[in-house]
């Protein structure tokens, strides 16, 4: 951060209203609030009446009005949130219909090998902005996960050596005082042991995988509903098109260890029916593997970007989910700026225990 930006931030911090408000006594007791919240069933109605009554107290009417306003706003967001790039009319992409056949033949987890193994490599671009300039670097990481049906398992993340986007980026970094960036993380290994509990059987919105329809048309309708319903937590209202949001959702489900071959097959066919999804043809991912890609374009993040999913048409295995910036934002260096970020799916298989060598499926 350059001195001018530091001054700006310091001046802003001096205006922090919390510093002037202070911690006046008599506020809500956090432990009491926590006890009230967890005393309700996690799947109860959105505003459980007993809790609402206790929390709202004498201001109940005002809060009811606010709730009505909230519902109205959510409805408006759901309707008006129809973002850029959405097209009318469903169609099926033949390439995804073919992949669906391969997906139906996928193996599943068994009693002797109860842990799904997934190895991914994430290649991201980090950018620091200083004084009207920016320097960019790439700091990839490799993630290995062994996850069983009950959610237990192990995740290992290995930070890889970073590198500058260009020699110019390194010079800008040095000129800014050489703040610690990826070098501190390089080579670091993080292990996370997962206790049973947050089962991968459930999608982020709480829907069990087993509840998803296997009919491609029904599943396509479900996907569209998820990405257009703000309450579903699948990105509705974030400005991206239905097509882009559906890629994120479908990629996530396809990488779920417990997605059945039938569900995976249906997902490919369903994604082919989402308006705006295009067949991008044969491509190579950042690992150099040949595959076919489907995707959609959006400028919602500030620069025209193609969001795509690359997969092996023979096995249906997802090879990568990828973002490629077509035109660098004006504040970032145009020359040498890394334009592609991706998550590469390197290996998938099953293992007998967390950390054990997996039997690969492909």
């Amino acid at each position, binding site marked *: *951060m350059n001195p*001018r930006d530091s*001054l*700006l*931030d*310091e*001046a*802003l*911090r*001096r*205006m*922090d*209203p*919390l510093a002037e*408000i202070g911690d*006046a006594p008599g506020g*809500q007791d*956090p432990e009491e*609030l*926590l006890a009230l*919240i967890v005393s309700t069933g*996690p799947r*109860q109605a959105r505003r459980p009446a007993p*809790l609402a009554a206790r929390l709202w107290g004498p201001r109940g009417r005002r*809060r009811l*009005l*606010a709730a009505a*306003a*909230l519902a109205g*706003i959510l409805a408006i967001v759901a309707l008006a949130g129809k973002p850029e790039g959405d097209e009318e009319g469903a169609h099926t992409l033949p390439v995804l219909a073919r992949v669906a056949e391969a997906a139906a033949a996928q193996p599943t987890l068994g009693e002797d090998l109860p842990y799904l193994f997934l190895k991914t490599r994430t290649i991201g*671009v*980090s*950018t*620091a*902005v*200083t004084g*009207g300039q920016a320097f960019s670097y790439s700091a990839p990481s490799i993630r290995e996960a062994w996850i069983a049906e009950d959610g237990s398992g192990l995740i290992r993340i290995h930070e890889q050596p970073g590198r500058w986007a260009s020699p110019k980026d390194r010079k800008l970094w040095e000129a800014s005082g050489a*703040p610690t960036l990826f070098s501190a993380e390089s080579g670091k290994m993080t292990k996370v042991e997962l*206790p*049973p*509990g*947050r*089962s991968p059987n459930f*999608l*982020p*919105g*709480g*829907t*069990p995988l087993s*509840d998803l329809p296997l009919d491609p048309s029904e599943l396509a309708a479900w996907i569209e509903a998820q990405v257009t319903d703000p309450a579903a937590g699948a990105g509705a209202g*974030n*400005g991206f098109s239905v097509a882009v949001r559906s890629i994120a959702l479908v990629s996530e489900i396809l990488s779920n260890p417990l997605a059945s071959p039938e569900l995976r097959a249906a997902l490919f066919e369903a994604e082919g029916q989402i308006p705006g999804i295009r067949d991008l043809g044969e491509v190579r991912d950042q690992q150099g593997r040949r595959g076919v890609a489907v995707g959609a374009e959006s400028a919602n*993040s*500030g*620069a025209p970007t193609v969001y795509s999913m690359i997969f092996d048409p023979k096995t249906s295995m997802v090879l990568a989910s990828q*973002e490629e910036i077509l035109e660098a934002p*004006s*504040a*970032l260096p145009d020359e040498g700026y890394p334009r592609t*970020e991706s998550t590469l799916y390197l290996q998938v298989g099953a293992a007998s225990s967390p950390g054990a060598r997996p039997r690969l499926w492909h």
Partner: protein
Amino acid sequence: MRQRRDLPNRADRQRSFEALFRATHSRVLAYARRRAASRECAEEVVSETYMVAWRRYEAVPGDEPLPWLLATARRVLSNQRRGAARRAAGQIPYPLDGAAAVDPSTPHPEALAERQAFAAAFAALDERDRETLTLIAWDGLTVTEAAVVMECTGAAFSVRLHRARRRLLAELARTGHRLGEASEPVGNGARDERTEAR
């Protein structure tokens, strides 16, 4: 749309949620208090935020829950403001809408003038620019975390941050002020200056 089912292990879920709540409550409350019209309103925002988190606990990222919670609080706050605007003729002010009215008892008249000018310039920015700047300066988030709150990519947030700072400086210059002109020293802020975008 199907009904969601209860998770089988309610006790684990509750323990996990309680740990999440205790680890993040003060940050979420601070975020809300900086932006809500009153402490009471801030507490409403916090209650609503954690009710959403409890209902949809599977959606809360296990590794970095704070940005998700702040994004939820931001939406609740926004709805609260809009609802209030419909019910009353006036809108609940963003706290810094009146920030130009600083404490006149300051012993440094030059510093007061600068604060007033800076606050006026800040108040002239639109809500998105103000939120972009304050997520970093007040809430102490990294660019990556703030991007989650603003529901954009890290690269897009970096660009927004850069442009918001530029617009703030331009506003300041428009009123004939420059940053750091006060007699009182401004900023020896030796914070972590890392602005990782993604």
